């Protein structure tokens, strides 16, 4: 027997299963990053000798731009697919993947600069927090890239076999991607500017 509401929407909740699943997953992620940010606040306010190293705000601004752009392209890809324009979808989705790659490259350059200045996770708690939070965020970006690459490559067959479900998958990935973007929007000011 088929599991109901995998594709179509359940009338009384207005959701298909995966969409509800991804929202719940994101709720859990909010608690994860909420705890990480709270810990940052507690460690920083509780330590009179807190040291704040000057970070590369320029590169971080560039990365902010990159991620915001990728959030736009991921919406465009989903919208194109809803309009059944698969070619356009592929272009936008590929752009998202490439932008995510750019973000990671810039991040690697930044890490490299910090290492060359002798700043490591164990140098002090500011650097510890910086590397832990940006590292975990980076892992989320990489995770998103893997899923996007899969849906562009072998996963794209589904467009032929179950197009509606494929569109749903793209929507779920889009929701996740926006969350990853949003985390960065909080990370950028709290780590680089404040």
């Amino acid at each position, binding site marked *: *027997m088929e*599991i109901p509401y995998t594709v179509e929407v359940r009338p009384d909740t207005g959701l298909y299963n995966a969409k509800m699943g991804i929202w719940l997953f994101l709720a859990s992620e909010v608690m994860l990053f909420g705890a990480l940010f709270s810990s940052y606040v507690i460690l920083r306010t509780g330590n009179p000798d807190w040291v704040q190293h000057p970070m590369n705000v320029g590169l971080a601004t560039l990365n902010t731009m990159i991620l915001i752009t990728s959030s736009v392209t991921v919406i465009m890809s989903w919208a194109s697919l809803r309009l059944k324009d698969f070619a356009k979808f592929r272009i936008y989705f590929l752009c998202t993947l490439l932008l995510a790659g750019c973000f990671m490259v810039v991040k690697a350059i930044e890490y490299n600069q910090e290492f060359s200045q002798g700043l490591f996770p164990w140098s002090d708690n500011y650097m510890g927090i910086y590397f832990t939070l940006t590292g975990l965020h980076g892992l989320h970006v990489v995770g998103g890239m893997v899923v996007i690459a899969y849906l562009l490559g072998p996963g794209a067959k589904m467009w032929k076999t179950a197009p509606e479900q494929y569109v749903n998958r793209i929507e779920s990935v889009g929701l996740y991607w926006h969350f990853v973007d949003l985390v960065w929007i909080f990370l950028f000011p709290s780590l680089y500017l404040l």
Partner: protein
Amino acid sequence: MSSIDEQHPEEVPELSEEAHVGVHHEDHGHQEESFIWKYIFSTDHKVIGIQYGITSLLFLAFGFTLMLIMRWQLGNPGQPVPFIGNLLGQANAPGGIVLPEFYNQLGAMHGTIMVFLGVVPLAVGAFGNYVVPLQIGAPDMAFPKLNMMSYWVYFLGGVVMLSSFFAPGGAANSGWTSYPPLSVAVATEGQTYWLIGMTFLITSSLLGSVNFIVTIVQLRTKGMTWMRLPFFVWAQLVTAFLLLLAFPPLQAAGVFQLMDRVLGTSFFLPSGLVVSNQVLQVAGGGSALLWQHLFWFLAHPEVYVLVLPGMGIIAEVIANNTRKPLWGYKPLVYSIIFLGFMSFIVWAHHMFMTGMGTVMNAFFQTTTMIISIPSVVILTALLLTLWGASIRFNTPMLFALAFLPMFGIGGLTGLPLGLSPSDIHLHDTYYVIGHFHYVVAPGTIFALFAGIYYWYPKVTGRRMNEMLGKIHFFASLVFINGVFFPMFLQGLAGVSRRLYDGGATYSHAQGVLEWNAFMSNSAFLLGLAQLPFIFNFFWSIKKGELVDSNPWQATTLEWVATTSPPLGHGNFETMPVVYNGPYEYSVPGHDDDYLPQNMAPQEG
């Protein structure tokens, strides 16, 4: 009419044969591919539920054994452990005599294994997985592949935890709470294993909780409105929300502690920390209290994760065996939801003695007193359900009836701990151990036993032996109280819970020292009392009394709408439609004393 009539009786024996293989699949070394996909990497919620059940019962037995070794040391300090003493390793127990360092490992791992690998996977992974889709009329969980992944990630977490015993220096030894700086600056490599193992377990519970919530919200069959959900499903829903939202902060804390241990950061290490007369060479500036906040933010809701599914099981069993509707179904539902919310804002009552300040203490003792209200409502409603009933005293019901006073003792003894003035005296004594074990052991574990006896016929098509079940029950009830009640006496006398010799070297403990041997002997007898259960569990798979699909004359869908065991894929022949509330027992004007949830109202 009900779909009992639609079942094909000739299918039942064939299906039960399947389930028998499923129940002890680990004993069979079949190499056929179909076997692997059917029973090892199955996506069927029933098989996954059985996998969870077997694995978690094995972990419970293992955690129990760790405790028996500790109790041997406490009851007979300095004596070699009998039977298994030589297997413990020369580094841990030379000549079979437990070393203090090993005792610490046993304590930490007993707690970790019982909570994260035993009780929760049994209550949620096994019972939730098997029963929830059947009770709400769903063909499976919403995400069957995630469900499979959730089990295997849990399994990996268990393997990592077990392998930590072979790590250099042994397993984690800083308590199941893993408080830094001890767990960072002093603990051996096993602590790193612990953190990695916890990451697997947290991932598993995240996948599971998303699956449960989506299943319960989305896959309820036609007519299964919120107020027609069996209370067990409500309990699982609230539990899933607790797991979903409370575990991530522990994951954050685990990442920080892993960074502290592996990369040398000092999130939890304050400046100028001295270990073994040496100032620790770290940057410092961290906060040890931060870990406690993050840990208890999970671990207090975790207490409710342990007990809520148990309450759900008890509600099912009590309604079924009193042949009455639950007294106050709606108050029960509202209470359990309120309990779920409140459980997020009581965590720091575990930290009254850390010096976090009187304002914080006042806030958290107030919320702690408030959270006792819904617990009391639930217990009272269950108790009042018994009023005027002609009770059927079968084995599941005996465990359910024992749950009420046992959980009651656990709950009431918690009040003095939740008030910061009395907690000053009781904190970190055996009183605390007695309190939470009453909640979890004769509380939750009795509820889980009730669940095993109750749903066993659904899984196997056969009932467990009643005589053996009653021996198991009465012996367990006597001995488990023998283990835990004297802990209150010792704790009130001020005996610390962490002493390797059980307090032999402390003058204030001398008056209550004789209880150590009593408690230890009770624990060994409690172990013996489980033998009838283990025998019964396996014997009944083949030899138990054959029963029809609804041996308890119950009303909920898992009993009235499908066979025992349910159909392999999809559970139901046709999707059931629900017309009635979950506990329509002894309805006036109805012929039977139970009205199945899927029975349509008759014309006229």
